[in-house]
């Protein structure tokens, strides 16, 4: 194998599995260390720079970082990254003074953001400190978009949304136009904005098409519309027996909300199997914990009603069959149909993007799914001054993706407005810093905790089912948070190898607790090399770190997969050929400043 190229930040970035998996590439181990040190405000600011909504995301993020977490491979469960983020938000002190100031002197450019969801708000936050005059439009009375209208209050209190939206809209530079639905992009362009960002989400719920649907319409609701009505307090109760259709997170929010508004027998019915449901495992768990059964492999067949009064739904039993190409088909199992009585049905079977307000004669191109044609990196549409992000760009994803889009779009808009090439992307900010403090002493806590994942305390179930607003999760207290934070392996503290210093004494090989280091003759083929290492390197998604130039002609091969980043290789290295260096990466934004926000 060729020696590993360390000149690009990508290699070490990938080693930090959580940060690599995060769409916004938040420096996770950095803020987790700050939490374990009790520096909650600093931890919050690292997050705020990167993902804009730490308090919101700490309760609601889809957490792609956690399945990626190395801890989940060396023992049973990943670090509770998401809930630690909430700890930073819950325990922080004053943060306003640390945020990038908004200049009084404007740069003369005006930007419109359509929709006040996470993507638009991120664009506004990133552009306002540069002197842009940002105008945010939303049809609702408050900012937050989906975070406010769709996510139930028992998961995300309103005060948290108001606070974090406020950090963007109340510091100057951003003018909000709430209660203002944008009905024409043409009209918006005519107002002379230098750039327009479309972050209006994916606002249309997919409907059900079975016999009886139309007749019983009074008690059949689209999930996202129903959730919004609950959030706006237009709806305060639901029937005793409720069926929720769909297997995504929206379905989970619907069933749990229904349970709190009078639904005593709430049932989730899903076409597919339990494992393939789109909902996050923890959201399924939370629903079941509240006494909500999830029934799988049932396809809606008919709505039964008596003169328009909803009575029940009939489902066909199906099973999964795989064709020659491995594609799954749901085919009738031949078992008798299942009939479930109900007073209300909530349909949460997916969302579609809808852009009825974008005129088709203004030069914007759409793909065959009705989504705008975009450059995937710059998020620029075929009308150069119009950019997209969030669910409006590539269909429904989640908050953290919306934030990531927002950062990229802000960079694009800034470059576009300054007459620079939008496709030329700025480099991320990367810092490598040595962790050695003395002989055998490191500036990070290299002791590896053997604690298993700590459970987040929950409110008493009977109590929390009584109110739609009572938050179910109480969050870690400081001591639990410190212990959970200690489970983090500090994957950003990298093992860096200097061939010229190595005397091939094997000290690192002997001490490594996970058998990750091997000195061996080199091989052309990576797959072959992987089989010759000290412990099996079977996870091919994880890189091998290869260094050549040793006196014996062998190569040093380190399998990154199971490395605990305990620093023992460096501690037992007599010549300093191994060093522990902290890798800090902040994605390129209009203003990079995560480190500037930390207290000294």
């Amino acid at each position, binding site marked *: 194998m060729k020696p590993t190229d360390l000149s690009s930040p990508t290699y070490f970035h990938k080693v930090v599995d959580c940060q690599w998996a995060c769409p916004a590439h938040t420096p996770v181990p950095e803020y987790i260390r700050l939490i374990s040190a009790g520096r909650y405000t600093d931890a919050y600011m690292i997050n705020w720079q990167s993902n804009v909504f730490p308090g919101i995301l700490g309760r609601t993020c889809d957490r792609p970082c956690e399945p990626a977490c190395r801890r989940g*491979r*060396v*023992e049973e469960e990943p670090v509770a990254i998401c809930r630690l983020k909430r700890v930073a938000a819950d325990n922080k002190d004053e943060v306003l003074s640390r945020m990038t100031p908004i200049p009084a002197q404007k740069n003369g450019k005006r930007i419109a953001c359509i929709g006040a969801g996470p993507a638009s708000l991120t664009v506004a936050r990133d552009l306002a400190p540069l002197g842009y005059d940002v105008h945010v439009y939303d049809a609702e009375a408050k900012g937050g978009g989906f975070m406010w209208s769709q996510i139930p209050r028992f998961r995300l209190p309103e005060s948290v949304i108001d606070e974090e939206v406020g950090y963007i809209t109340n510091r100057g530079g951003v003018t909000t136009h709430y209660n203002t639905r944008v009905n024409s992009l043409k009209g918006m362009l005519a107002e002379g904005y230098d750039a327009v960002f479309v972050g209006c989400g994916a606002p249309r719920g997919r409907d059900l098409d079975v016999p009886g649907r139309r007749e019983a319409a009074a008690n059949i609701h689209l999930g996202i519309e129903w959730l919004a009505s609950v959030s706006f307090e237009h709806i305060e109760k639901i029937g005793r027996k409720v069926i929720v259709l769909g297997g995504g997170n929206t379905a989970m929010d619907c069933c749990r909300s229904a349970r709190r508004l009078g639904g005593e027998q709430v049932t989730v019915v899903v076409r597919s199997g339990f494992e393939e449901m789109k909902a996050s495992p923890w959201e399924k768990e939370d629903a079941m914990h509240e006494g909500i059964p999830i029934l799988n492999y049932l396809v809606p067949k008919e709505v039964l009603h008596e003169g328009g009064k909803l009575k029940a739904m009939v489902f066909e039993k199906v099973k999964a069959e795989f064709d020659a190409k491995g594609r799954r088909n749901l085919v009738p199992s031949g078992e008798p149909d299942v009939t479930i009585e109900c007073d209300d049905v909530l349909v949460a079977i997916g969302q579609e993007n809808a852009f009825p307000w974008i005129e088709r004669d203004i030069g914007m191109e759409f793909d065959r799914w009705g989504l705008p044609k975009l450059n995937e990196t710059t998020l620029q549409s075929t009308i150069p001054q119009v950019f997209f992000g969030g669910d409006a760009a590539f269909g429904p994803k989640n908050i953290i993706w919306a934030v990531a889009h927002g950062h990229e779009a802000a960079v694009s808009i800034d470059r576009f407005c300054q007459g620079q090439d939008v496709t030329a992307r700025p480099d991320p900010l990367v810092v490598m810093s040595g962790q050695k403090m003395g*002989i*055998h*002493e490191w500036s990070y806590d*290299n*002791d*590896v905790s*053997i604690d298993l994942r700590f459970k987040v305390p929950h409110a008493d179930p009977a109590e929390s089912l009584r109110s739609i607003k009572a938050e179910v999760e109480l969050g870690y207290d400081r001591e639990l948070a410190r212990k959970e934070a200690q489970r983090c392996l500090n994957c950003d503290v990298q093992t860096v190898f200097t061939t010229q210093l190595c*005397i*091939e*004494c*094997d*000290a690192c*090989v*002997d*001490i490594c*607790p*996970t*058998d*990750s280091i091997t000195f061996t003759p080199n091989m052309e083929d990576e797959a072959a090399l992987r089989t010759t290492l000290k*412990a*099996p390197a*079977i996870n091919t998604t994880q890189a091998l770190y290869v260094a050549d130039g040793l*006196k*014996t002609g062998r190569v040093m091969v380190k399998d990154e997969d*199971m490395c*605990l980043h*305990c*620093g*023992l290789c460096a*501690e*037992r*290295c*007599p*010549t300093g050929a191994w060093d522990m260096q902290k890798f800090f990466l902040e994605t390129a934004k209009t203003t990079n400043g995560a480190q500037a926000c930390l207290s000294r």
Partner: protein
Amino acid sequence: MSYLKPALKHPSLPKNALGFTRRDYEGSISTLCAGCGHDSISASIIQSVWELGIEPHRVAKVSGIGCSSKTPDYFLSASHGFNSVHGRMPSVLTGANLANRDLIYLGVSGDGDSASIGIGQFAHLMRRGVNMTYIVENNGVYGLTKGQFSATSDKGSKAKKGAINTDEAIDLVAMALQLGATYVGRSFSGDKQQLVPLIKGALSHQGVALIDCISPCVAFNNHEGSTKSYDYVREHNESVNKLDVILGRSPIAASYAPGEMTEVTQHDGSVLRLRKLHDDYDATDRVAAMNYLARHKAMGEIVTGLLFVDPEAQDLHASLGTVATPLNQLNDASLCPGSSALEKLNAGLR
């Protein structure tokens, strides 16, 4: 500084016949200087005992004083151990062995412990043929007292500060061969491929087995002019054979030309499969081995490998005709048969 190795281990680490991983045979973290050759020897012992599938409680590790003699703390923490007096490992181990012949005895010593203060003990243990594995972690200097020449330092080699050694070196391998050791090997801490099979063969040998293992002292003897540095040993290492230790009968995987491979079956049924790397070397001929070693030493080579093995080895218990049962399993009547038995014995000697 870390005192404990993290308990977390590689989840797909292989297990031996007992269901243990290699990590179950570890000890505490070494407090020797980083990069010490002794740590690689400890790792090789761990690997060997794990591969042989020996239950840790069946091993007794005994040592004297010195850097080398500290190492039993760094492997087999679940085994029996005795850190004895300087140079007295052989007599303590001999006593233990006489009392309980069921254990597997591993003596760990250094060049100071064995070739200076303990040389008498070394010599008599060898000639008595105590059933044990005797590992000398040989770095050619007194590391604990900052690098004076030891008795195994080669004449003409240079100390870290430039002094030249004027005394002749004691060659423990030559002594062991002369004193009747029945399994003699030399190896290098930086070559586990060679060292691990040598230790496995020694542990399964039913007689006295000596392994002289050159182990560079990174702090005081790893410089230009030293003959026990990583670089010097790598350059001058001449391995005479390649050893595989086979437990139970397994087919020979590769085919060898006649004479290229020999097999030696030991008392316990283990097979030492020796692939020759030097045509004229015969590891079962004691006198030839002594001649070969003397000749090649004069040529400046460090000859390594399994240098001699006598599969028909006998140990001290056989010569003394001792009881087969360990003393701790005998009852009072057997251990102390009374004055009439003593009188009878004395009468027999008059």
